[in-house]
C-alpha cells in the first residue's frame, strides 16, 4: 500500500467502521483468510453488496483485479489515520 502505508506502520483502525469509496479498510482476505488492508474503489457493479478494493502500490501485490470483489461483511473496520513514524526509522 505504498506510498500510503509502509511495512511496519501503525494505523488507527475503527473496528466496525464502514466501507466507502476512497477509504482504507481492513478486511478478511477472500482467498488467504488473513487480515488485509486495501483501498475501497467502488461497489462491485455486478453486486452492490460487495466492494471492489484496490492497492495503492501498482507494482506489487494483489487486489480485486486478481481476487475479485470482497463481501460487504468481510469488511472489519476502517483505517482512520496512520500513526506518526519514528523519526529514527527508515
Amino acid at each position, binding site marked *: *500500500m505504498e506510498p500510503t*502505508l509502509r*511495512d511496519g506502520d*501503525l*494505523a488507527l*483502525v475503527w*473496528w466496525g467502521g464502514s466501507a466507502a469509496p476512497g477509504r482504507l479498510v*481492513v478486511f478478511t*482476505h477472500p*482467498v*488467504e483468510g*488473513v*487480515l*488485509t*488492508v*486495501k483501498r475501497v474503489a467502488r461497489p462491485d457493479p455486478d453486486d452492490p453488496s460487495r466492494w471492489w478494493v484496490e*492497492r495503492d*502500490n501498482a507494482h*506489487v*501485490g*494483489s487486489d480485486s483485479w486478481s481476487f475479485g470483489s470482497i463481501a460487504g461483511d468481510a469488511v472489519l473496520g476502517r483505517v482512520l489515520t496512520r500513526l506518526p513514524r519514528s523519526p529514527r526509522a527508515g
Partner: protein
Amino acid sequence: MRLPRVLTSLLEVPTVQAHCDLPCGVYDPAQARIEAESVKMICEKVAGNDDPDFRVRAAIIKEQRSELVKHHLWVLWTDYFKPPHFEKYPNLHTLFNEATKLAGASGTKGSFDVAKAEELLAKIDEIAQIFAETKQA
C-alpha cells in the same frame, strides 16, 4: 488491576497484510508460453482484418500480453533459476535476454509479425527445456 475489556481491546495491535505476494515456489514456463501464444494469435487475426478499431484493440492487447511474457520470464530468471543453474547452462542468461527482447519493442510489442512471435515461442521452449531438466535433477 484488570483492565475493562473495552480498554484491552483498544490496546490490541493485530498485524494486517497489505499484499499476499509471497514467494510461493510455483514456477512454470507455461505461463510465459500461453501469453506468447496469445500474441501470435493476435498477429494472425490482425493480418486478415482492416477494421481500424479492431486493429487498435489488438495492438493494445498485444502490448499487454507481450509485457506479461516479459514479466513471467523475468520471474523465472530472477526467482526460479539459481547460480548453479547458470553455471550448468552458460547460455541461460543469453536465452532470457533474447527472449525478453523478442517480447519487447524490437519484437512482438513493436510489430504484428507472426514470425517474431514464433521466434519468441521457440525461445521460450528452449528455456522450458532447461527448466524441465533442472526439475528432473
